[in-house]
């Protein structure tokens, strides 16, 4: 069911409030996602940026209700088109997944079942949610393969995943995800495993599909360049919580958190600015953030980034509960010193 952007005016497609996920580990119950809140409006793409240990993937899986089992505890609220996912029964979740909200993953080859044709795997989803006959489902399958840009779709539908390249497999995944025209698509590092030229085409495809289906997208990536192409707003996650959230332009031009500034610095000066007349250039050191992402059971008190932060102040940054504070339209940051600091963003362009 496509979400008509004019229909549910004002009400977000996805509303996450105080999402907290704990896992039972050798260190006892450990929080990996800590009170995360954000929302996505109809037709909007929210980029969720973070490195390993940030909790971005678990957050995404929680939206789908896929974090379960005896060693997991999920609290808070996740509403997809007003429907509460947390605490909902499996049968209810199963009707929502694939139909209202879909997900694609990082390794497309591994995410497809090698024992079935790709067509079978798309048809399956339509038959499950829309009760189509075999013939209708197959017709829909071929149509979807065409929509996602696979040439000779009728023939390819009968092929197995191992006969397709990585990029094609990811297109098939998109076909599966969008066959029932969901309102929300969650993409977890969808292009990370693909070649750069393939990635570019894939992102272009996703943009056009977004237009065509009126999708909202939760786009997860560690790559700021990719996020820059795809997202309207960006939320930066660090050590289980959102460090800052802002519209894309503003995040990159004037970051509101030292972590964001640090990430941007590693992309800075990629080499196309200045000195282009100098053809024999010495390799240059890159700006980096010192230290490492802390493990979930060893999160520092206070601001979790403070041990690595150039601007950390004793007494302010190393203790207490630091909340995500809004400032300016659609912007919020967890840095207590934000107002005092001048954080460097990207130089234009």
């Amino acid at each position, binding site marked *: 069911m496509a979400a008509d952007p004019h229909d549910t005016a004002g009400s977000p497609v996805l509303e996450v409030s105080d999402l907290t996920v704990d896992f039972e580990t050798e260190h006892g119950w450990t929080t990996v996602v800590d009170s995360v809140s954000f929302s996505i409006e109809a037709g909007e793409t929210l980029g969720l940026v973070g490195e390993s240990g940030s909790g971005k993937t678990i957050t995404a899986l929680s939206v*789908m209700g*896929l974090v379960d089992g005896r060693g997991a505890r999920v609290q808070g609220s996740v509403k997809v088109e007003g429907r509460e996912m947390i605490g909902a029964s499996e049968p209810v*979740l199963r009707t929502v*997944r*694939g139909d209202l909200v879909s997900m694609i993953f990082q390794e497309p080859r591994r995410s497809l079942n090698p*024992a*079935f044709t790709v067509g079978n795997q798309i048809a*399956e989803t339509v038959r*499950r949610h829309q009760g189509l006959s075999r013939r209708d489902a197959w017709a829909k399958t071929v149509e979807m393969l065409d929509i996602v840009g696979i040439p000779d779709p009728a023939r390819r539908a009968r092929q197995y995943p*191992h006969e397709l390249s990585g990029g094609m497999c990811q297109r098939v995944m998109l076909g599966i995800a969008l066959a029932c025209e969901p309102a929300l698509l969650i993409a977890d590092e969808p292009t990370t495993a693909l070649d750069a030229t393939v990635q570019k085409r894939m992102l272009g495809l996703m943009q056009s599909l977004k237009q065509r289906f009126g999708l909202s997208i939760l786009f997860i990536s560690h790559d700021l360049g990719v996020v820059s192409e795809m997202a309207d707003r960006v939320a930066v996650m660090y050590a289980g919580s959102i460090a800052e959230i802002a519209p894309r332009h503003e995040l990159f031009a004037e970051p509101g958190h030292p972590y964001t500034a640090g990430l941007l610095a590693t992309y800075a000066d990629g080499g196309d600015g200045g000195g282009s007349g100098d053809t024999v250039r010495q390799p240059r050191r890159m700006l980096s953030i010192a230290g490492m992402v802390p493990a979930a059971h060893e999160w520092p008190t206070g601001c979790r980034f403070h041990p690595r932060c150039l601007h950390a102040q004793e007494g302010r940054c190393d203790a207490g509960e630091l909340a995500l504070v809004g400032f300016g339209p659609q912007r919020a940051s967890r840095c207590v010193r934000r107002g005092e600091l001048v954080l460097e963003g990207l130089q234009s362009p």
Partner: protein
Amino acid sequence: MARLITRRLMTAALLLVIITFLVLALVDLAPGDAATRLAGDGASPEQIQQVREDLDLDDPLLERYGRWASDAVTGDLGTSLFSSQSVSSAIGDRLPVTLSLAATALLITVVVALVLGVIAANWPHTLVDRFVTAAAALTMSLPPFVVGVLAVTVFAIQRSWLPATGYSPVADDGYAEWARHLILPGAALAAASTAELARQIRGSLIDAMRQDYVRTARAKGLTRGAIVCKHAMKNAAIPILTVLGLQVGRILGGAVTVEFIFVMPGFGQLALTAVEQQDIPMIQGVVVVSAISVLVINLLVDISYGLVNPKLRRA
């Protein structure tokens, strides 16, 4: 696929030749002597030698093999040295018994193992799973004759639910009696194989469930049944089929002891007697039939791989 089958058949034919030749050679090397036994107690050395010549037992190995092989290819497996019954008819009499027994055991194995294996894989590390795993571990180590004797004692002697011995051909008393006579021996034969197959199914399914494509299947909103029985099972099938193939071999082998305990006039008994008596044509006949059945089973397993896993279709 056709190429796969042709190749396997060629290899199978070659193997049959090698096996039957080796068996003939082994019989020669084994202690004891068919001629002596045939001639009977108190026979003089000349009489024994006479028997030997009559039966061409002194001819060189290759010649004897050559003669046997050329006959066998036309379907003539020769005559028993002791009973003067043709080998093929003796086998023909006994085979249906063993086949019924083996089929029953196989049916029990597959059905019970599937049920237990799927249940255990669905709720891993829970009480149910631990029970199934423990029971399987225990049963796996029980040889068929132990289970057989236990089963007979409990079900046939202490209570008369099921017959203790014998085989009832369908032609005699109908299907019901035939089935009743097969239950206990079939279960005895199946016990260890069921346990092993159940463990394999559980393990392979759990493995398959951990894969990324199962995560995708869940994300699509598929039901639990579809995920386990369609997505996971098709990938888990290969190791399961392999173990199943092995179990069939095991069942055929175990049939001998079970037939003995339950006094069933089966193929296993025939084989045993033939070896004891060094009834060479019978031994060869038995070996051929056994070897063919094992080779056929292996071929079927190989073909099933191709059906289940598309990557393996070009041999």
